[in-house]
């Protein structure tokens, strides 16, 4: 038996020993039940128990409870102990109450009375016991009963320091359950001045309380900033002997320092006063300097305490996000920690760097450590550190390093721990989408994800790749080709079958020209997977098959055969059976036209919802993963609030950090809405082409088509329909309010330089100034081409949303090519004209890199939408594309020829334009460059 101190209870020690000697769980339960019976009989017995006995039995009950057994009696005896005049009995009574009494117990009134008595005691030990009990229970009852006493105790001059400390934290505990307990007025300043108290223990306790009060009412407690800064400065510059017992392993008052640094993080900016600000920066620098000094002790406690202060200082620096010099220094310091031998430090450095990566001042600095972080992801022994490295890579990713980081994450994914795979998949998917400059890369990444970690690819991820492929014409052919190849693997993941089935059903025709992926081959390939798949995937494949009937009438009988097989009992699943029968009937009954209408290509998805980010956030409650750079201290609310592409793009131009800034973090109150908004912006960015200097949205797509969604964010959608004849055009703009409240002062303004207006005359009908919630209005524009022009007009849409002025500039799809009339001609006449147009001013030529990979069918599709006639069998090289057309202007007609020559080896295109007018030659050449 272990030695027991003088005040120990022998009976208790014996009982504990008995329990420890029990050989089995059953024996233990038996011993406990025996003891419970004994105690119960003592409590119920006729013999009155003295204080010591009560204390002993209550203590035994407590021990039994702590072993994990339920205790349903003894509370009354414990409450009796509270009023004992023996301290040791009182103390056990309080302990039992703190551990075992739940807040709504009937006994609470009795307890409160005892506490009241002890609070009156002249002995601080009793008072503290009472305060600790209040804090341990911390209920509303407690707050109501002591809302007078405790605040008084805290600021009264007579109160001893040890009691003040307890009172401060006791009050804090009550404040958390009942915020109204805190008096205001004069009391506030007395509380704040506790920061100046002589006693370090009092300051430490008070700082915790003040921190909570500030969070609730920052203005009222603003005075604490100056006091906190000067207190902190004094501590940091103190020698470790100054603070005596408040120095912890040679670090002066680490707890108080950290609390003060936290307190200051409640304000942003921390202070408006230059003097205070200077002193704070000096203090922060001192902390950074000290980190570089040789350690005063080899003990881990020394390094922990010192670095605890350092990390908190860095948190404050990140929070203020206004001192580039400090941010860069912080980053360098953390960089050193990345290769420290303490796992804890490496972990914290990675975590802290995640935040630095989101500051525009230190983002670039963080990127310098990319290699070490990648190594951490691969080599760390502890999965939580590896996970933190993944988080940091995610946070530091931007357009410049996205390909490398995504590739490294993909490589690592093959061997990554199962516990972090799903999250990594989400992160890779988000980064690939956000930073894709070339959507074929995006498609490759997602298909790789499915290949490597198919089981961890959630529905949101594969839905998303399909949405994106459907919305982006330029990638459809490539996607079809790639999924087709991926499906040829002998074992491919079911998610791959889903994506493959869907994409081939929509775009299988784009690769059907190649005999290796002829319709029947595609169909057989998909159907070879059918039997290995779940019913849901089978259902999807059946839909693909019916779409094939529309795309490839030649394999109709093969498909009907499959439908026939599955429309009967062979399909145990009712849904599949029904699908098969209905599709079969549809393919038999419907005419080609009807079939084509029913099975028309999927319309574009609205460009907003990437639900992947939401899934990621759900996976990490409390800590939202970030891959967004904060705008440092932007005072203009409008700019921060409408996190839209157009608005931010203006900023981008004036800033070297271009695309980084464009992705500013939305304010917390509408973070949820905007989180998806950020993703749209990025997509918009891609169409708007990152290096274009004007704020445009999706306009390039409209070079090749006349109708579609021109602009969309979380407030507004603008659709366009247009038609052109000769030199005249008519545009309908459809403004849709997506919000729940009206958009007011709604005014679209045309922006088209006067000298341009002489060449292209655009008239716009005014619209109603209010766009009701959920409503759509139409605006008609007419355009008349008088002579040829460059570029295209912009409309600036202004309105107020929820009191905030909004402004977007959107390019109209009114480029010169809209006035083309296609011209059919044979090879002879084409080349005759070609030779005629050989003057210096009549020719323009550009060589540019193809979008990866080179997509010839895609290029043909685009040219067909461009407005000229695509002429087959003219160029002897079948890969080359030639076109002819006439541009109609009021003053003249301009004949125009085009030749687009791909160089598959170099992955380049050479574009040649010949036209009878120099300015047209140049403009057509310019607008088509880089489009294929």
């Amino acid at each position: 038996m272990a030695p027991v101190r003088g005040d120990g209870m022998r009976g208790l020690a014996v009982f504990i020993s008995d329990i420890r000697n029990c050989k089995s769980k059953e024996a233990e339960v038996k011993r406990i039940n025996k003891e419970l019976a004994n105690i119960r009989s003592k409590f119920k017995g006729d013999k009155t128990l003295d204080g010591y006995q009560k204390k002993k039995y209550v203590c035994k009950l407590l021990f039994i409870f702590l072993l994990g057994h339920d205790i349903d009696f003894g509370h009354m005896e414990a409450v009796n102990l509270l009023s004992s005049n023996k301290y040791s009995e009182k103390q056990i009574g309080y302990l039992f109450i703190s551990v075992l009494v739940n807040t709504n117990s009937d006994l609470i009134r009795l307890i409160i009375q005892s506490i009241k008595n002890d609070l009156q005691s002249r002995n601080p030990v009793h008072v503290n016991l009472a305060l600790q009990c209040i804090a341990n229970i911390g209920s509303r009852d407690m707050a109501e009963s002591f809302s007078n006493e405790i605040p008084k105790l805290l600021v009264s001059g007579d109160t001893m320091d040890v009691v003040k400390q307890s009172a401060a934290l006791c009050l804090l505990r009550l404040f958390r359950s009942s915020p109204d307990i805190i008096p205001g007025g004069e009391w506030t300043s007395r509380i704040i001045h506790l920061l100046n108290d002589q006693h370090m223990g009092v300051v430490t306790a008070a700082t915790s309380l003040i921190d909570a009060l500030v969070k609730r009412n920052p203005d009222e407690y603003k005075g604490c900033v100056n006091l906190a800064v000067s207190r902190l400065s004094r501590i940091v510059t103190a020698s470790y002997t100054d603070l005596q017992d408040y120095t912890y392993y040679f670090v002066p008052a680490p707890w108080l320092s950290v609390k003060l640094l936290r307190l200051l993080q409640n304000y942003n900016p921390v202070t408006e006063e230059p003097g205070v600000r200077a002193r704070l920066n000096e203090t922060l620098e001192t902390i950074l300097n000290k980190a570089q000094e040789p350690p005063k002790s080899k003990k881990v406690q020394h390094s922990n305490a010192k670095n605890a202060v350092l990390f908190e200082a860095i948190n404050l620096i990140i929070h203020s996000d206004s001192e580039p010099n400090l941010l860069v220094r912080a980053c360098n310091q953390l960089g050193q920690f990345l290769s420290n031998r303490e796992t804890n430090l490496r972990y914290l450095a990675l975590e802290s760097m995640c935040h630095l990566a989101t500051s525009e001042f230190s983002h670039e600095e963080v990127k310098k450590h990319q290699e070490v972080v990648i190594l951490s992801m691969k080599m760390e022994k502890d999965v939580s550190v590896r996970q933190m490295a993944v988080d940091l890579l995610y946070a530091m990713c931007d357009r410049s390093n996205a390909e490398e980081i995504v590739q490294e994450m993909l490589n690592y994914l093959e061997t990554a721990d199962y516990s972090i795979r799903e999250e990594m998949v989400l992160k890779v998917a988000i980064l690939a989408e956000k930073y894709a400059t070339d959507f074929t890369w995006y498609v490759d990444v997602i298909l790789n994800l499915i290949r490597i970690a198919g089981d961890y690819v959630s529905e949101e991820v594969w839905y998303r790749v399909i949405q994106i492929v459907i919305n982006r014409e330029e990638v459809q052919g490539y996607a079809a080709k790639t999924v087709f190849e991926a499906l040829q693997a002998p074992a491919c993941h079911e998610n791959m079958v889903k994506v493959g089935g869907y994409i081939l059903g929509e775009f299988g025709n784009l690769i059907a020209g190649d005999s290796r992926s002829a319709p029947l081959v595609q169909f057989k390939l998909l159907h070879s997977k059918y039997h290995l798949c779940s019913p849901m995937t089978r259902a999807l494949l059946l839909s693909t098959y019916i779409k094939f009937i529309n795309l490839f009438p030649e394999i109709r009988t093969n498909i009907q055969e499959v439908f026939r097989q599955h429309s009967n009992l062979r399909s145990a699943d009712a849904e599949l059976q029904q699908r098969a029968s209905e599709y079969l009937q549809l393919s038999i009954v419907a005419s080609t036209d009807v079939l084509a209408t029913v099975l028309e290509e999927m319309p574009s998805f609205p460009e907003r919802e990437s639900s992947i980010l939401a899934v990621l956030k759900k996976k990490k409650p409390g800590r939202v993963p970030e891959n967004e750079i904060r705008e440092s201290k932007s005072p203009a609310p409008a700019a921060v609030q409408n996190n839209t592409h157009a608005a931010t793009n203006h900023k981008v131009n004036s800033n070297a950090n271009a695309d980084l800034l464009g992705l500013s973090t939305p304010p917390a109150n509408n973070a949820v809405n905007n989180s998806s908004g950020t993703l749209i912006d990025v997509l918009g960015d891609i169409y708007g082409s990152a290096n274009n200097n004007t704020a445009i949205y999706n306009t390039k797509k409209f070079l090749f088509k006349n109708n579609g969604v021109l602009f969309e964010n979380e407030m507004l959608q603008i659709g366009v329909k247009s038609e052109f004849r000769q030199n005249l055009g008519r545009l309908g703009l459809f403004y849709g309010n997506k919000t729940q409240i009206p958009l007011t002062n709604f005014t679209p303004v045309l922006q088209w330089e006067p000298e341009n207006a002489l060449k292209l005359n655009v008239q716009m009908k005014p619209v109603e100034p209010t766009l009701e919630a959920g409503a759509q209005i139409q605006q008609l524009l007419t355009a008349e081409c008088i002579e040829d022009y460059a570029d295209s007009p912009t409309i600036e849409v202004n309105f107020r949303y929820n009191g905030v002025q909004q402004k977007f500039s959107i390019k109209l799809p009114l480029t010169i090519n809209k006035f083309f009339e296609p011209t059919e001609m044979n090879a002879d006449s084409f080349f005759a004209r070609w030779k005629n147009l050989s003057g210096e001013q009549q020719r323009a030529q550009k060589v540019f890199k193809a979008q990866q990979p080179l997509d010839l069918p895609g290029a043909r599709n685009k040219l067909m939408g461009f407005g000229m006639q695509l002429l087959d069998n003219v160029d002897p090289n079948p890969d080359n594309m030639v076109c002819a057309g006439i541009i109609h202007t009021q003053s003249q007609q301009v004949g125009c020829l085009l030749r687009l020559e791909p160089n598959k080896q170099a992955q380049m295109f050479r574009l040649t334009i010949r036209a009878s007018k120099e300015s047209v030659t140049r403009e057509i050449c310019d607008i088509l460059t880089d489009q294929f």
Partner: protein
Amino acid sequence: MMLFMLLFSRQGKLRLQKWYNAYPDKVKKKITRELVTTILARKPKMCSFLEWKDCKIVYKRYASLYFCCAIEQNDNELLTLEIIHRYVELLDKYFGSVCELDIIFNFEKAYFILDELLIGGEIQETSKKNVLKAIASQDLLQEDETPQGFFDDHGLG
């Protein structure tokens, strides 16, 4: 703010639990079970911090005992390690080379010492000297009392 502190042995036996938030008993048991399993499965050189639910776990092993604290997202992990260390130092000073048995047989003392160090999940007194002084003055009050029950205990279980 610290949300709770658990002390448990290498065998997974809970030796002390202190909750600074009101959780139902069922939840307490569930949390304890989960954390004990998670932490016992970790290897010695691993990081002392884990993300867990919406809070952070800081733990450290001293001989046969694990000390495990849950803190909020914004709290300082390194300093929480030092709160644990300070508590261990106090126990050590009080019991004189503390061991697991001391805490088992004198669990109430372990609670009293903890209450002097932390109130409502916040550190109250960081000075070792001052905490020990407070505990000493408690003991002083007790020494005035005569151990009258000593004889009664014989013959009782």
